[in-house]
């Protein structure tokens, strides 16, 4: 997994609440058997018209936001389907940080598995940061100290320590769990004796 440490970018602001994963990447693009190449279809229905032409007014079609690495959006971002294609599409587009006042659980988890940092801030801070998007000014995200720095201001955010470590070091959490193989084996042994029906033995 790609590491995440610090990031500087002009943020793009999408002032919509409950952005669902169907919006982020519609179902016709879930037929892929790959993780890559979904960036061009990110927010497909808002980004392109019926003929496939870019809709100029959509934020990610405008310069400089078509190069934004940070997306700021309304609350409950990433709700709905569990599709990991949503973070894959964001990543492929170049967005590695999403800021919202809340995230849906599965999407939030999926971000951390793909080197994307989801940041939760309160609505007032979201408003302040969105001004930077409107003015096309850069903001700076530093995961090490858990801060967003904008102009002469800064705001702290919180990240789960284990997830932070995985992001900073780009760790493969399957390998980490497999390091606990002995514990898994012991658990399975107990399970077989206490609940043999689980294994259908």
């Amino acid at each position, binding site marked *: 997994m790609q590491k995440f440490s610090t990031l500087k970018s002009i943020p793009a602001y999408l002032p919509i609440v409950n952005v669902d994963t169907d919006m982020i990447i519609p179902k016709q693009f879930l*037929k892929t058997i790959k993780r890559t190449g979904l960036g061009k279809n990110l927010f497909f229905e808002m980004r392109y018209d019926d003929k496939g032409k870019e809709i100029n007014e959509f934020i990610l079609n405008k310069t400089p936001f078509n190069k934004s690495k940070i997306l700021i959006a309304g609350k409950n971002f990433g709700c709905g389907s569990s599709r990991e294609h949503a973070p894959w599409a964001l990543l492929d587009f170049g967005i590695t940080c999403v800021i919202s006042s809340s995230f849906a659980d599965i999407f939030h988890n999926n971000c951390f598995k793909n080197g994307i940092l989801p940041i939760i801030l309160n609505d007032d801070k979201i408003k302040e940061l969105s001004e930077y998007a409107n003015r096309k000014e850069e903001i700076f995200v530093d995961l090490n100290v858990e801060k967003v720095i904008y102009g002469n201001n800064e705001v702290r955010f919180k990240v789960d320590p284990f997830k932070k470590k995985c992001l900073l070091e780009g760790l493969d959490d399957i390998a980490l769990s497999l390091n606990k193989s002995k514990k898994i084996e012991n658990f399975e042994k107990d399970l077989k004796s206490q609940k043999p029906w689980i294994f259908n033995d």
Partner: protein
Amino acid sequence: MPNTLYDKIWNDHLVDQQADGTALLFVDRHLVHEVTSPQAFEGLRNSNRKVRHPKLTLAVADHNVPTTDRSKGISDKESKIQVDTLEANCKEFGIKLFGMGDKRQGIVHIIGPEQGFTQPGTVIVCGDSHTATHGAFGSLAFGIGTSEVEHVLATQTLVQKKAKNFRINVEGKLPLGVTSKDVILQIIGKIGTAGGTGCVIEYAGDLIRSLSVEQRMTICNMTIEGGARAGLIAPDEKIFKYLEGKPMSPKGKNWENALEYWRNLKSDDGAKFDKEVNLKAEEILPMITWGTSPQDVITIDGKIPNPQNEKNEDKKNSLERALNYMGLKPNMAAKDIKIDKVFIGSCTNGRIEDLREAAKILKDKKIASHVHAMVVPGSGLVKEQAEQEGLDKIFVNSGFEWREPGCSMCLAMNADKLKPEERCASTSNRNFEGRQGRGGRTHLVSPGMAAAAAISGSLDDVRKYQN
């Protein structure tokens, strides 16, 4: 200390607990489908890893399969690749698969219970957000992403943090014509789509206990629409009776032992819930959604909300956006909303009782001439059962199409989809923009309400057709 049902299942599955609260949880049952698994299997191959417990894993193709004549296979090239890939992966890793030609094939959340793969007190995961359905059996069931699918395949565990305990009590009796779909829509309307974020919901109260196993599944299924990770209900004799004799249910001595364990699966008296909400069943009416989020609910007697009455600017904008997308005017009566299509099916409402409920309304009636309506049974076994009961004939005689099982127009990955601006009364679970097809307009309803809408040609009150 008294524990909740969620606490008990959690504690019973702890493989490892880190000091920072991160836990490694054992997974008893893993359901796999074609859309969210190819990259996970690819990951296993690239790292030279195996599936740790193929026997605890069950696979089915459901999202992409055609619901019309299957004798010619899948004509959509990409869909075919995905379904073929699942087949090849299952073969390579030794996982049991219900292929497209198998009569046990169907929607992943319908076949799990049907086969007895779903069992009380287990941890069940699937790369699909509607995995919460299995919580109806008193299991901790939740959706995961593809990276997590790979993690479960490789380790039979999942890295998790404990969620909060949230209990929703529904007491009383439902009025005539009101179903568990209306109950869950009402709940989502009340708590909002983020109301359950970070929580596991336990549904309790005498109304919940009075529901059938299938009705409970409808409630747990849409838990994710309220933002919660999982929804569950303490298992009881109805659940045990349902599971007895199912192909993958425990047998003989195992059955006796399992039963003894299952009977203790309930929240202790005095267990602490972080959050609690109470509803009276008598006050729940037939519901519809009017907007583009499952929390946008009104009763069938209700009116479309007016953004002018909304003081909060963000909420007002979001109301206007939804009304604009849905092509609706403020203050319009729900019953004046004319529909073009009706879809009965999905993991929310594609089981036999759902089909019976709709067929009861449709018997000896014709659907409106401008309406195109279809029933997609949730599985091959549901289809077979319905045909034995003659329900297929009732549907066909009324003007419905009778299809092959799958996810179909719930998410419109196959050929079943809405055209732009087409309006559908749907028994599925999501009314998001574009969910049933680009520009398509979805109104979520119960199976009975979908049948009533098909007959009237507009959203209508199912109570009108009750005897």
